């Protein structure tokens, strides 16, 4: 006997409602510019150095007006525990952690493999910049918290395939913010290192792929390859490079162009760091 006293739901599985395609994002960012960066140092009083970074969202249709929020704290340099073996250099420990609500998929409180991977990249990028032999027998902890990951959350269209391209943007932000926080902590560096991303994107099958600086993953049809670089502008050196993807045709030409574009993105980010550090210095002089 079927239960006729209650209003039952339909038998079997249901599919969630599907809405029509949302109005396409208005591309307000040109391919030759990076998104606006907000950077502020010295926001965490208890840490010896700290910085906060936001990336502007150029597509204001969304509820939030940012696309990436990062907070970085630097603890140290401090002495190593007595049990630790002698080290002639400063020991650098980097932690990158997504907040549980930072991405579409909830992140647990334990760091997963992609977060650890980002941590290793960040460590490589910073280790080249820090003058490590000025602090023997000491350690420094660099902790980056991703408050908002660079993901588009409001359209099902963009949930098609999560290939992890947004990790590149997060990494470049991590490098920039950590560099500012290290400078804020007063740790000697050869230069302020900054991160930048460039990607080879293909809007649709008909057009030829183009190279875009600081790509917004949701706005492009598909990303073929991307490159994240950590760069020291005054020394003209690269401390970390991460390239992945597939390059059509003659590889090296496109690859070199991609690298050059990401270096330009690095220079842009570096200007923001330098400006912010200058302001901090001026403020300090004004008070005393």
């Amino acid at each position, binding site marked *: 006997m079927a239960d006729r006293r209650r209003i039952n739901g339909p038998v079997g599985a249901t599919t*969630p409602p599907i809405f029509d395609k949302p109005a396409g994002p208005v591309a307000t960012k040109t391919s030759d510019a990076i998104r606006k960066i907000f950077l502020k140092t010295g926001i965490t009083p208890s840490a010896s150095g700290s910085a906060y970074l936001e990336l502007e969202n150029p597509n204001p249709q969304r509820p939030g007006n940012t696309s990436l929020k990062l907070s970085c704290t630097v603890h140290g340099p401090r002495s190593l525990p007595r049990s630790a073996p002698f080290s002639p250099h400063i020991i650098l420990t980097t932690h990158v952690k997504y907040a549980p609500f930072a991405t579409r998929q909830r992140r647990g409180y334990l760091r997963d493999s992609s977060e650890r991977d980002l941590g290793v990249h960040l460590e490589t990028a910073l280790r080249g910049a820090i003058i490590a*032999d000025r602090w023997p027998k000491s350690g420094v902890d660099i902790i980056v918290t991703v408050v908002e990951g660079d993901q588009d959350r409001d359209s099902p269209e963009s949930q098609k395939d999560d290939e992890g391209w947004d990790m590149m943007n997060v990494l470049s932000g991590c490098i920039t913010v950590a560099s500012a926080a290290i400078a804020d902590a007063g740790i000697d560096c050869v230069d302020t290192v900054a991160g930048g991303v460039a990607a080879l994107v293909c809007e649709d099958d008909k057009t030829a792929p183009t190279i875009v600086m600081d790509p917004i993953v949701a706005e492009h049809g598909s990303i073929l390859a991307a490159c994240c670089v950590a760069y020291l502008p005054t020394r003209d050196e690269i*401390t970390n490079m991460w390239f992945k993807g597939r390059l059509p045709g003659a590889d090296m030409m496109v*690859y*070199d162009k991609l690298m050059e574009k990401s270096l330009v993105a690095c220079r842009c980010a570096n200007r923001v760091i330098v400006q912010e550090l200058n302001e901090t210095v001026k403020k300090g002089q004004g008070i005393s």
Partner: protein
Amino acid sequence: MSSTSQHLLLSPAELAYLHGSLSLITPGPIRPDGRSPTQFRPLTAETGILPGTNGSARICFADGTEAVVGVKAEVEKTPLSPYEFVASTEGRKDHTQKKSGSRKSKKATGDEEDISMDVDEEAAGANDKIRGSPDWVELSVEIPGLRDDDSGTVFLTSMLTEALLADGEFVKKLWINRRFHWKLYLDIILISPPLSYPLPLLSLTTHLALLATRLPRLKSEADEDPMFDDDWAAATFLYPRQDTSAKASNKSSKPSSAAAAPASRPPITLLVMAVGDNIIFDPSKEELAVADSAVAVSVAEGPASESESEPEPESIPATTTKRNLQLLSVRTIDPPSRLTPPGVPNSVNAAAWGTMTAATPTTTTAATASATEGGAAKHPDARVTETEDVVGVWKAPRGGAKFGMLGAMVAKVLEREAASPRSQGAG
């Protein structure tokens, strides 16, 4: 920290000597084990060692490091997301329209041909829809003495996974039909302690294991529940080899060297380092300890150009030897040289009668007289010796690599791989 810096017992003087001999320009770099800059370590390899796997391989390097890789495959249901359903029905709408059009045109020719036409179209539609998801591959790396969640291990895992997934072609091989796919588990185990940075070894072993991987032959059709052939001898290779008939058809265009070789190959990750202006392949632990920069480059070989399957006898003779290489991923690796202890120049060493404040001619001690004198007389300030290099005194490298150097390293890998017949003997 990572496995790169383990068990390194070299003094600053030894490091400086090694760095000096590796950065020589005129005779080229002199490596401790006498290899040429692009030469790899000798190795022994075998495949099919684990009977319980779909494919397995073991590689043993001459320095005593050894790795085993087992590949296992399971059939898994593909979760259908509602968004894909929309896309597929839209696709089907187009499809039916097309079909009706074709039916009208084919009306005259008869029913049987019409059906075959439909089947063809169906097959073409299915081919368009073949897709893969990164979740279909699970790769785990185990290195003795390190935790699973150690950052070095995680870095290796993600680097090897990235190389497999970067072009999105590999996961398409795991597609069975719209509802089912293979899930591939790659378990990489380093048997020996990590005597050198294990990346090249692990990557090579994975490469071999994937080449030897076979999946049971599919008997069912289209979107049915998959049914497989019981006969293991009929199992197909994940990377299909060119069979004899194909070989016979284009024998004229191809010499017999690559006859039994697979058309495409799994990715391979190479470790390259730079010392001075020299680029050195497959560095050992000692060489990596003096590297200025190190890069891991993943390359894969695509299906060796479309022209090969078509009979094109003498159009481009060069392409038959050149292989269709694709750059998949590049990562810089933190060279362990940044963690090595620095040497102390005589000018600031009190034991060698140097002083911290001023350099006097008395700094001329017996052994390193010329080097110290030059350094100390020019730079009386001790701070200068801290920032600048003194000849023959080791200092951990600072900063990064030049843009041109990184590009040259990647280019050299592509060039070297294109020329190398190394992986030809595999299997």
